[in-house]
């Protein structure tokens, strides 16, 4: 593995939920990253954000690592879950709740229901 791949492996191993994104969770710099970070924030999920704009090696490295050409990318317990479209679909269908339940990730179920009510 490359140094970058090793670094990514360590990050997703050390944190239950990791979002590779453009910008930070406090200040996203792309609408797609903002949407996913917003969902996680609203659902009260503790997650590690990694700003790919701060490191060109990681920006390309995460795409190679996941075999996925776009950012944001969500990892839960070391597994790639998907990008913005998949996370949006999973949030609205309730599959994201199920994933968090299965993986033992704490989140606010009421907040998740509110997202679905508002977008139902």
């Amino acid at each position, binding site marked *: 593995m490359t140094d970058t791949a090793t670094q990514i492996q360590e990050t997703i191993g050390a944190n239950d939920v990791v979002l590779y994104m453009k910008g930070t969770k406090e200040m996203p710099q792309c609408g797609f990253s903002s949407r996913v970070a917003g969902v996680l924030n609203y659902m009260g999920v503790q997650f590690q954000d990694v700003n790919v704009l701060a490191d060109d090696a990681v*920006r390309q490295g995460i795409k190679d690592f996941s*075999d996925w*050409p*776009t950012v944001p990318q969500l990892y839960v317990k070391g597994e790639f879950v998907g990008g913005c*479209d998949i996370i949006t679909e999973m949030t609205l269908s309730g599959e994201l709740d199920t994933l968090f339940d299965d993986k033992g990730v704490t989140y606010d179920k009421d907040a998740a229901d509110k997202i679905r009510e508002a977008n139902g």
Partner: protein
Amino acid sequence: MAMQANEIEDLIRASFPSAKITITDLAGDGNHFAAEVIDESFRGQNRVQQQRAVYAALKGKMDGPAGDLHALALTTKAPD
């Protein structure tokens, strides 16, 4: 380097000849598209596997600053 909706459809069509493909130009700028791809080959695959296959069909058009496409919102599923 903007792309036309039919170019995107042709690229996807080359890998998924019998798929139902719907391309929408979201912003009218040739840069932000939505694609819905419904294909029998997706049955039994999760969304990550389905969308990896579509990205592969696009052959690098999505690749960052050098790519032709900034944004392609993907929806993939098997036929009902």
